[in-house]
């Protein structure tokens, strides 16, 4: 970039500037334009390719429904069609339901003076907060004098059915070890909506497969991985409870182990199926001793 043009080289430069070259200008400009467009297209094609499917109607056999599958259905709805996790996460937009013990929280809320709703127990409270969220807004959320920012769950665009809301209540009650009080749906509507993913997913066969599939070994010392980026998981069962382990996978940022960077992705709960998550949790709860071998290869590990 020569900027100090003196007047002597002036006319020479003019000639240079007006030189047209062999390739016509139109061709050069067009190639430049098309090249740029293809670079942008390339970038779009390099990013993860995910399709966002609309919820589809899937038949649920109510006869075969057990409380366990009903709770699992609630959990799927919670992060799927119900879109609850969009706000109810650790980012402070709404109470972090997955981190809170909701049974206890519900009892607390019902007893505060400001509570003006009609619920008498946790089941009614959960339902009320879904169908009439403005009845009681938790202090610190929403704006004073304005309706709750939470959408009405049984209305569009979310539009959960009674059965689906029941599943979510069952999940909320059960997730901290409580007993669900909701009744299993038995009657009438045979068509039930749940979330359809892009492809019918196949659950992993065992916990090892889940750990490998999700790349846990990249950071954690688990199975035959010696990685020290994240906390050692070989003795996690001795240090943490089942609930803490589950929580750390679903919502890694809730508790960051001392001395480790908060870099664990928060989307494992979405990527794993409920069944897979439980397999991993079971496996980790059982991993109690770092010196003992869960797998034979593990003996020659680590120089921590």
């Amino acid at each position, binding site marked *: 970039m*020569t900027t100090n043009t003196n007047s002597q080289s002036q*006319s020479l430069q*003019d000639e240079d500037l*007006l030189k047209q070259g062999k390739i016509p200008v139109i061709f050069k400009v067009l190639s430049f*334009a098309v090249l740029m467009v293809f670079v*942008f297209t390339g970038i779009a094609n390099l990013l993860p390719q995910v399709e966002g499917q609309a919820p589809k109607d899937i038949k649920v056999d109510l006869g075969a429904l057990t409380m366990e599958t009903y709770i699992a259905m609630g959990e799927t709805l919670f992060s799927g069609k119900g879109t609850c996790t*969009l706000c109810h996460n650790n980012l402070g937009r709404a109470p972090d339901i997955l981190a809170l013990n909701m049974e206890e929280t519900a009892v607390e809320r019902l007893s505060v003076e400001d509570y003006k709703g009609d619920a008498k127990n946790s089941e009614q409270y959960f339902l009320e907060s879904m169908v009439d969220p403005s009845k009681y807004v938790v202090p610190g959320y929403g704006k004073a004098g304005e309706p709750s920012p939470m959408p009405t769950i049984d209305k569009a665009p979310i539009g959960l059915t009674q059965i689906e809301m029941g599943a979510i209540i069952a999940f909320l009650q059960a997730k901290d070890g409580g007993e669900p009080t909701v009744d299993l749906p038995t009657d009438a509507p045979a068509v039930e909506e749940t979330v359809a993913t892009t492809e019918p997913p196949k659950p992993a066969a065992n916990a090892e497969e889940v750990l490998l599939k999700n790349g846990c070994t990249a950071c954690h010392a688990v199975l035959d991985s010696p990685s020290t980026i*994240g906390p050692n998981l070989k003795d996690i069962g001795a240090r943490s409870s089942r609930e803490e382990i589950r929580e750390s996978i679903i919502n890694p940022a809730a508790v960051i182990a001392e001395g480790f960077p908060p870099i664990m992705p928060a989307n494992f709960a979405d990527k794993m199926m409920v069944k897979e998550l439980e397999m991993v949790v079971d496996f980790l709860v059982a991993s109690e001793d770092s010196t003992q071998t869960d797998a034979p290869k593990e003996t020659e590990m680590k120089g921590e």
Partner: protein
Amino acid sequence: MLPNNSLVTAHFVSSIEEQSPSQSGVILHRSMQFMLALIIILSALMLVPDYAWSSDSAVATEAVAEELTDNKPAPVMGPRDYRQIGSMSSRSFVWVIAQLHLFLAAFVLAVPLFVTVIEWIGVKTGDQRYDDMAHEFMKVSMTAYSLTALFGGTLAFSLFLLYPTFMGYMMEVFGNQVMVYALLFFLESGVLYVYYYSWYALRYGNKKYVHLTLGVLLNGVGTTLLFVANAWATFMMAPSGVDDAGVVTGGIWDIMRGPLWNPVNLHRFVANIAFGGAIVGAYAGYKMLSARTMEQRAHYDWMGYTSNFIAVLAFLPLPFAGYWLMAEIYAYSQQMGITAMGGILAWLFIVQAVLIGTILLAANYYLWNGMSRCEGSGRYTWLIKFIAVTLVVSFLIWVTPHTLILSAQEIATLGGSHHPLLGPFGIMPAKNIAVNLMLIGTFLSFQLYRRSDKVITVPWANFGNALMVAIYLVAIANVIFLGVYYGYFTNTVYKVGSSVAQVISTLIVIVSGVVIDTMMFKGAKTLPVKWGQISNRGVYALFALPIAFTWLMALMGYVRSSVRTHWHVYTVMKDNSVDNFIPNIGHAGNMMTVATISFLALVLFIFWVASLGDTKQAKPVSVPAQNPAQ
């Protein structure tokens, strides 16, 4: 080249020198004032209290309620409500047609906006060249106008053909309003043709003011057209004036004045100007590269510079308009907001970052190259390399993705789904630092460019310069400190809160830069500007800008439309077609490229037709009469 070529150049240079002292300053000020006024008017429009309409709409509501007691809810869509042309995806077809219509419409609405401003500058400064340039801009947009109408018609037909039930419902909701749109279109055409063809008939004296009034009228009608059409799109995103089932309950005002209407109005209005400026900049750049004389080259260099200036100036407030739109989307539905910013569409913002980065880099590159037009620029060239490095590093940080979906193998190789070293650059605070530094760097380039043809004479020049340097350095330190400290060492609330202070830091630099410069330029000596003295490489920035703008417009339009997810009209009318899913980014990118390349072809046609008007066939010489000896 002949020796007299430099004579012509010298003449042209000197003729510019006479008028150039505050040339860019004038444009800057006039267009800034104009933009500011428009933004204020639009914001005021938003703030007009509800009761301003309420008497009207209350009456209208009653009337409507009486008239249409048998209003129907939005139909539930089944397979019979959708049609296809052959095996072509209806969505893809409408996607491309609508995008082309929007590209052309944006261009056609924007050009008269700045043409009228430039024409007015011409009147105020008495500089004939502004008037000529304004007329040339207009000429380019005339062909685009009829193409806009053609694509608009095609779009309407294809919508009625492919989505008959949906369009039926939209017609029921909007009713006679669509005829108002048609009427406005007639008016727009009429005023446009009179404005363009009366250019030379109404050129001087009081007649010029008649012509300027026509220009204002043209823009009034054009902008109203835009707002009327925006109401359709915003109704689909955030319906108002209908109940949960889609039954019309309000008057047309209630339907049009949804929560997103004004934010979209403002955003589209400002973006159109940036887009239009970029396109005519490319026109000037092309003419410049193919110029045969230095005089032509100088003219088109100046034209390209002005267009680029308009484009970048309109581009800078866009993030703020975008922020308002996003804030209103969140206020309307958190779900919709999060779908856009944190959900499946969030990846598109990586692509957006690449495009905006390209635009900023191109704009800077153009300014740096353009400094060679001024002899006084030598004082500042040493700074350019630092700006360049800052921009490139910031750009790279900006496009570093946060989380990547990788295979287990890749994660193992990388040592985690976040790179141990690059990971921290992927999160928001790092990106906030990067964006703000890029904006500060771009403004510095701009400020240096403006200073490069001036010798400042005010007595407090030293202090002014020191203050400016101090503001830059402290602002940069502040942006980095806020980002690093609050971004990495405290909680989320602070992270978000400190990003506001970062943006304000950048704004302080820009505002104080403009103020200090304006005061320092008083009585400044002006060095000659040699238009046309810019490397051909630099001119390519004028092509990079519109290409990136076009693609970016397609991208953001796609995001705006996609936040409705599986709804035709959000919460009211479900999309049950085979295309009711959000396609993957690659597919969307390919669609945008199809639209962009088609638009490119159309633009070439428009430019070609515009230059065809200037081409005169030489009169055939009557050969047989005289037969000169050979």
